[in-house]
């Protein structure tokens, strides 16, 4: 990597007061996986009792670095210092014993156990649970009081909200004596309110002298809570900043290695006639849980309708029904004034034939067949079209030409139609899916989580593509858990909570606070309903 390029004066090293102690110091850490160098001579210093952010795109080496610190990976070379003493962390057990706690992005909890049982897990105390339970109860009471971590110890994990589960993870770490807490993308699953709650907890932990390392790709969070921040790119730490002395733009620029536009220009587009009408749609999941209740809305040509909400509030099911994957159980969907009543008339194939393209929420499970080559994935769902076949055989030449065109036009890298799609980065996989769906020239585009796990550079490109499609008159339904994304892309916003639409607003009137309240089900707001 050409590091000289980045030395544009923004590599301000944090000047530390002489007296402060370093909680963590990583020196020249290198870790390879096969040919890939995940961490390349990484140096990192975190002061004791501070919140330190690590930002970087996917694959920049953040998680690898933290996994090394937590003892999950062994570095090929380099040294780890904890509290200014050289240590060898060769297993998670060792790292826990050294006072490191990690809260993973996907929680490591037993869903059928109670909160208390989960906290005890791996730390039962003695052979009989009873005595261990008592000592842990005492300790937990102290911890909850000190840090403002209120949890119901008797609640079953699967019944508790996600924000609460995260607190359990934090308690688990603290209960085992963690003085250094690593949080990997902690806010991905939280509502704005829950995020505020989490940050309050983190601040009070800091006051008590706990050192916190926060891995995230959300720059706003970095700016609001961290004291210092390191930017990683291509396996290296490319810059360190004191948070007060930097800005989101500067961080983004360092993450990507070039200037990035964080705001989107919304093109003026002509909103046409209503093309999709959803009326009183209700849906029960396979286990009989009611996941959608009386959903009604309409979508017009040339408009982006955003659906905001915390993940798991019925958005996925709505997308599945509209795209024909799930059967329509109750209610009515009208497309182009043509009503669809039952699943016999409506399935994925028919939806595509009509002109509904679908960028699914989960590109790994749905949007792509990961072991397939790019050229095979570039026709997934459209493989029956005559343009890709001659007779009953598929025409590989035509498919390759088409794929080449796609990856040129939508900047999918590497520019190879015959690479295995599973080997592409998240951003390029998403660009491939989006390219395929846009290239089908849809009348309606359903988009779920378009930028989940996607690098900043690719996000920029994806937004541009969506805007261009909109200006051509395509109706776009955008489901996302990222409020910023919803607010900056959509023309109108619907908010979903527990399977119902709890609010509607135009994006110019929306504020994050209002939307957050609606998302958490606190307020039912319906304005601009029939403009």
């Amino acid at each position, binding site marked *: 990597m050409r590091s000289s390029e980045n030395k544009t004066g923004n590599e301000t090293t944090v000047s530390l007061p002489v007296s402060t102690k370093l909680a963590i110091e990583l020196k020249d850490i290198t870790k390879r996986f*096969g*040919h890939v*160098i995940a961490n390349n001579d990484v140096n990192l210093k975190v002061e004791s009792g501070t919140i330190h952010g690590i930002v970087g795109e996917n694959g920049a080496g953040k998680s690898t670095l933290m996994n090394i610190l937590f003892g999950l990976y062994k570095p090929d070379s380099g040294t780890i210092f904890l509290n200014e003493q050289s240590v060898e962390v060769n297993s998670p057990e060792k790292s826990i014993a050294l006072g490191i706690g990690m809260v993973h992005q996907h929680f490591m909890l037993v869903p059928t156990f109670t909160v208390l049982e989960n906290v005890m897990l791996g730390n039962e105390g003695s052979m009989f649970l009873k005595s261990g339970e008592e000592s842990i109860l005492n300790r937990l009471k102290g911890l909850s009081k000190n840090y403002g971590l209120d949890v119901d110890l008797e609640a079953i994990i699967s019944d508790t909200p996600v924000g609460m589960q995260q607190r359990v993870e934090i308690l688990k770490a603290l209960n085992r004596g963690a003085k250094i807490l690593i949080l990997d993308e902690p806010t991905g699953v939280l509502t704005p309110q829950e995020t505020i709650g989490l940050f309050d907890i983190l601040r009070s932990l800091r006051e008590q002298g706990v050192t916190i390392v926060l891995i995230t790709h959300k720059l706003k969070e970095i700016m609001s809570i961290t004291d210092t921040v390191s930017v990683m790119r291509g396996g290296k730490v490319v810059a360190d900043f004191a948070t007060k002395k930097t800005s989101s733009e500067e961080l983004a620029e360092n993450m990507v290695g070039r200037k990035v536009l964080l705001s989107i220009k919304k093109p003026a587009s002509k909103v046409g006639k209503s093309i999709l009408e959803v009326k009183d749609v209700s849906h029960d999941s396979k286990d009989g849980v009611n996941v959608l209740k009386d959903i009604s809305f309409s979508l017009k040509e040339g408009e982006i309708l955003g659906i905001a909400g915390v993940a798991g509030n019925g958005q996925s099911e709505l997308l599945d029904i509209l*795209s*024909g*994957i799930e059967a329509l159980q109750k209610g009515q969907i009208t497309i182009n004034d043509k009503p669809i009543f039952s699943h016999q008339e409506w*399935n*994925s*194939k028919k*939806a*595509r034939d009509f002109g509904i393209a*679908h960028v*699914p929420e*989960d590109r790994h*499970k*749905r*949007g*792509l*067949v*990961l*072991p*397939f080559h790019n050229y*095979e994935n570039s026709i*997934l*769902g459209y*493989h*029956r079209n005559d343009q890709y*076949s001659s007779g*009953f*055989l*598929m025409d*590989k030449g035509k498919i390759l030409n088409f794929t080449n065109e796609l990856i040129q036009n939508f900047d999918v890298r590497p520019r190879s139609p015959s690479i295995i799609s599973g*080997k592409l980065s998240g951003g390029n996989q998403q660009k491939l899916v989006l390219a395929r769906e846009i290239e089908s020239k849809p009348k309606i585009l359903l988009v779920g989580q378009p930028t989940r796990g996607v690098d900043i550079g690719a996000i920029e490109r994806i937004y541009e593509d969506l805007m261009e499609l909109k200006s051509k008159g395509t109706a776009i339904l955008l489901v996302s858990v990222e409020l910023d994304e919803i607010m900056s892309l959509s023309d109108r916003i619907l908010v979903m909570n527990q399977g119902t639409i709890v609010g509607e607003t135009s994006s110019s009137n929306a504020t994050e606070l209002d939307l957050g309240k609606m998302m958490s089900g606190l307020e039912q707001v319906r304005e601009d309903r029939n403009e």
Partner: protein
Amino acid sequence: MSDSNIIPKWLSVGVIPLFNLFLAFCVSGLFIFLIGENPFKAISVMIKGSFYYPGAIGYTLYYTTNFIFTGLAVALAFHARLFNIGGEGQAYLGGLGVGLMCLIFDQYIAGFLVTILAILGSVIFGAVWGIIPGYLQAKRGSHIVITTIMFNFIAAALMVYLLVNVIIEPGQMSPETRDFATGVGLVQIHMLAKYLGLNVAMSPLNLSFGIALIVSIGFWFLVWRTKFGYEVRSLGHSETSAVYSGIKVSSTIIIVMAISGGLAGLVAVNELLGVHNKLLLGFTAGYGFTGIAVALMGRNHPFGIFLASLLFGALYQGGTELDFEFSSITREMVLLIQGLIILFSGALAYMLNPLVEKIYLKYYGNFNNA
């Protein structure tokens, strides 16, 4: 199946399987040594027995034919992530199809027409025996591994009943049908060669081998060049993606199992139309089960399956020779060697990968880090 991303293809597809094979032979040699025979002499007998003696190659290719059919049957199902353990039963039922067609029609119409009908019969009966488990999997969620295993037992019992009570040649004790009429059946290669003026040693190798080669090529086109094959592979790699793309999962499963069963049924063509000229008990002799190992070793690709079939064909033929030459090496010893090969090249196929990766990276790893 987890193919390594690190080592190049020529290592993972070419060198490692050969090395696995070598290991299997080493361990086999150890056993032969333990029972007091010379392993090197044994291997030379095996190789000569399967390739060198007059007619040996014919016998080897005759076995190979069976393994190609059952290997392709397992492989096709596996492309849809279905584990078809029922090749044995499907081949057996294929035999019923051949038998019925011949017994019903051979008195009335020309031999070659009967033969064509019999081939169709083998495919259709085998297919039916695949469709039922396929239907149960697709529509009722009964696990295909369980149902296909059970269908092997049902097939065996059904054939015993039919051959002992219904279609047995009247007036004789052994559970076989009468011979098919002359003119019915596939011509054997040594006969064909004689007709062309060539002198080829006698062996049971017949035109089925040609059918197997044609079917192999067809298999490649079906899986990698047709829309149906595309849908099958999508389904096999990711059912959720298949649903997303509008593929009808249950009907695809049923069709795959039908074709898979039909392929296995073709074993009966080689055995009954090519060699025995009648339907008899137990002619499948475990070919259906060995097909699983063949598909595994051949990585579900027709060319790989051809090579693996050739190997197993040579083992069968060479094993018979071994049994014949050494008094201390029995049929069971030959089965042991086959078992070891299946173990090393099938079940332990990826055992050596980490080691090879390490060695590869040590010597070649640095070149690619520019």
